């Protein structure tokens, strides 16, 4: 498949795929992390106020 230059064509598709999918996964992971941290902060924030009162 893809003739004599397959060893160039396939890697270039793999590289592009890995980079774009990798970036997407990274961004999604960051999103999850931040959502979790925000939740944690909100919960601890409520606790702190409870301590005060």
């Amino acid at each position, binding site marked *: 498949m893809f003739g004599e230059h397959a060893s160039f*064509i396939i890697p270039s*598709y793999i590289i592009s795929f890995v980079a*774009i999918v990798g970036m997407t996964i990274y961004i999604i992971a960051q999103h999850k992390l931040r959502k979790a941290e925000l939740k944690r902060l909100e919960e601890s924030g409520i606790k702190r106020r409870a301590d005060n009162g």
Partner: protein
Amino acid sequence: MTTETIKPSIWAFANPTRFNTFASKAIPVLAIITFALLAVGLWMSFNAPEDYQQGYTVLIMFIHVPAAWLAMMSYAVMSASAIGTIVWRHPLANVSLRSAAPLGAMFTILALATGSLWGKPMWGTWWEWDARMTSVLVLLIIYLGLIALSKAFDEPSEAALPLAVMTLTGAPLLPIIKFSVDWWNTLHQPASVSRFDRPAMSAEFLYPLLIMALAYTAIFFTLHMMAMRNEILSRRIRTMKMQAARKQSSKGAA
């Protein structure tokens, strides 16, 4: 007292909050469009006939050229955001600028990598100081410099203006760089014909290329919106942490 402390954060995040609500709805739609375009584009690319000159390597073009276009479009998006930062001081503009830079760098690296993989069978070397490859390399250095600048500040809001000013300074210089590199290239290699310059492209290559370019554009906007949402969240976390710290310290003082 409490209302006073809450007021600035609400003011500062009114628009970003609205943006996040909008983004949550828009991202799935954009993702679907991206997948559809990508599927069609790839299907058309792999069904394109073998080029009589380049053989199957023309397949690399379908991902190389869109990456190179997106590398430039990212800079255009960043410049527009930079104007937003300078003229309207809109917090979202800075979020957009910061989020676009790594994406631009990614597409630039992809353009260079696929260009190199395309060049090897064509030129016989992995790297040729070809006019386009060289300009893209300079663009990569500019992207990396801007990313370094954005990371150099402790406080993200302090990086907003420096980043915007540097981005906008680069914008009018980019065409000059491109022009000078082209000029330099013809000066030193008058005989070499750039492989990427094809006088006329037949429709069987043009359509898959255009669809792939649209797919890449959709990838950019999807990821950009997702990255912007992340940036807004991380700022909110930062503000909350700072407020908590301040509350703690004022408690200690009292």
